[in-house]
């Protein structure tokens, strides 16, 4: 008898989760290198009795849209954008982490670091240090870093077979146990940044949809409540 409410509950919970994902996408509309996400739901069917069949909504996972974000020119020589798939690798105490955000800087040891101060790794897994009297920083489309005093190394760009299996850590970082492969075809653009690939219109329509569906779940529960009340009233009058 109570199943209608439970089915509606499963949908309402799923919708709240979807709203959270949408809200996170909208909040990160201007975050460098951010990839938008969308939740995946599946129908979860249960057959408690022979002729009964319920299907509930179950969230299976969040799916990351790995398409490229808009590339905008900043003119800052330490801003780099990746054209094509792949990630930059940065060094942390817990091992390498991967990121698409190419807003780099130099630290006081003149090492190339990302915006959180984590050193950016080159293709051999070591940090890139600039000589103190160099002023002109150039990064070629292949990722080769050089100054007027000579080459310094190549920024490591890696890709993964199972890109969806990367875990997000916040701060634009991703983690995985998979062994990275060098991304050969990905170009590096100096003086550009990759924006967030969140599509505002899509998120707004998603949000309206979530809101309306939530209201219809509420009306379904309301209708169910009325139905039960009527049933109890009629049944008690009969006796």
């Amino acid at each position: 008898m109570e199943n209608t409410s439970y089915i509606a509950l499963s949908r309402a919970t799923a919708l709240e989760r979807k709203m959270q994902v949408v809200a996170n996408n909208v909040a990160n509309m201007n975050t460098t290198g951010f990839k938008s996400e969308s939740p995946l739901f599946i129908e979860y069917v249960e057959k408690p009795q022979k002729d009964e069949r319920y299907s509930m909504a179950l969230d299976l996972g969040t799916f990351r849209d790995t398409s490229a974000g808009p590339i905008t020119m900043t003119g800052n020589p330490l801003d780099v954008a990746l054209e094509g798939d792949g990630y930059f690798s940065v060094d942390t105490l817990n091992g390498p982490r991967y990121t698409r955000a190419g807003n780099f800087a130099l630290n006081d040891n003149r090492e190339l670091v990302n915006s959180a101060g984590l050193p950016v790794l080159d293709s051999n897994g070591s940090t890139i240090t600039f000589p103190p009297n160099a002023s002109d920083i150039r990064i070629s489309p292949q990722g080769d870093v050089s100054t007027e005093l000579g080459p310094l190394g190549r920024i490591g760009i890696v890709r993964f077979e199972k890109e969806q299996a990367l875990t997000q850590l916040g701060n634009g970082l991703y983690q995985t146990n998979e062994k990275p492969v060098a991304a050969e075809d990905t170009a590096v653009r100096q003086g550009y940044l990759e924006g967030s690939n969140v599509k505002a219109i899509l998120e707004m329509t998603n949000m309206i949809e979530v809101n309306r569906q939530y209201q219809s779940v509420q009306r379904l529960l309301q209708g169910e409540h009325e139905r039960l009340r009527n049933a109890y009233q009629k049944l008690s009058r009969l006796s």
Partner: protein
Amino acid sequence: MRSLMIGGTGMLAQQTNVEVISNNIANMTTSGYKMQRAEFQDLLYQNIRRPGAQSSDAGTIVPTGIQLGLGVKTASVYRIHTQGTIVITGNNLDLAVNGDGYFQIEMPDGTTNYTRAGSFQLNADGQIVTADGYTLLPGLTVPANTLDITIDGSGQVQAKIDGQIDPQVVGQIQLARFPNNAGLEGLGGNLYRETPASGAAVVGNPAIDGYGTIQQGSLEQANVNVVSEITNLITAQRAYEMNSRVIRTSDEMLSALSQLR
């Protein structure tokens, strides 16, 4: 309802963004001003279902998992120290640095600060000072009966003194460079201070070893690109509005919830 809070973080971030952009626009014509940019990062993720977790005894794994983000934060507001446009003013104590390097300014408390704004003047003692009267380092005195001052690209200051045929060398302007310009702390008044992030100042003569060239009779304008600031402002404002929509929608969902019975 987490989406309410997430929308809130989004609005806060966009507010910071608008503040940074408006400061850039306000300083559009400040000489030697370097534009700032707000940089955002996503907050931590909640793992509801970890990607890569096993979903059966046969070793099948969850391909994507459920990771719910918790919003956005301002990671940094950093300065972009690219070269600004150099305009000719004709005033012989207006100096522009073409390339890397900062003028060293002695503050009244004896510490050294740095600036790119080279609109200098002479004070009563013949010292070269900023618009606020702080002296340019290394200190030099221009003789009283000087007719004209010439400062060459490498920072040598020569004075043409009344009654003398050859100009007299009165001093040498030196510039300071930093390992990480973006780490300098802005103090207002076009001044910057050294921090651990910027690294220690390396002082040297202009026009050699990567130091910029000094250009007399010119000033460096702000490196603010107005068109891109205005488009950034529009984007930030729209993003702010959309985050407020998130809050409104979450509110409507909560109100639907409270009407349940």
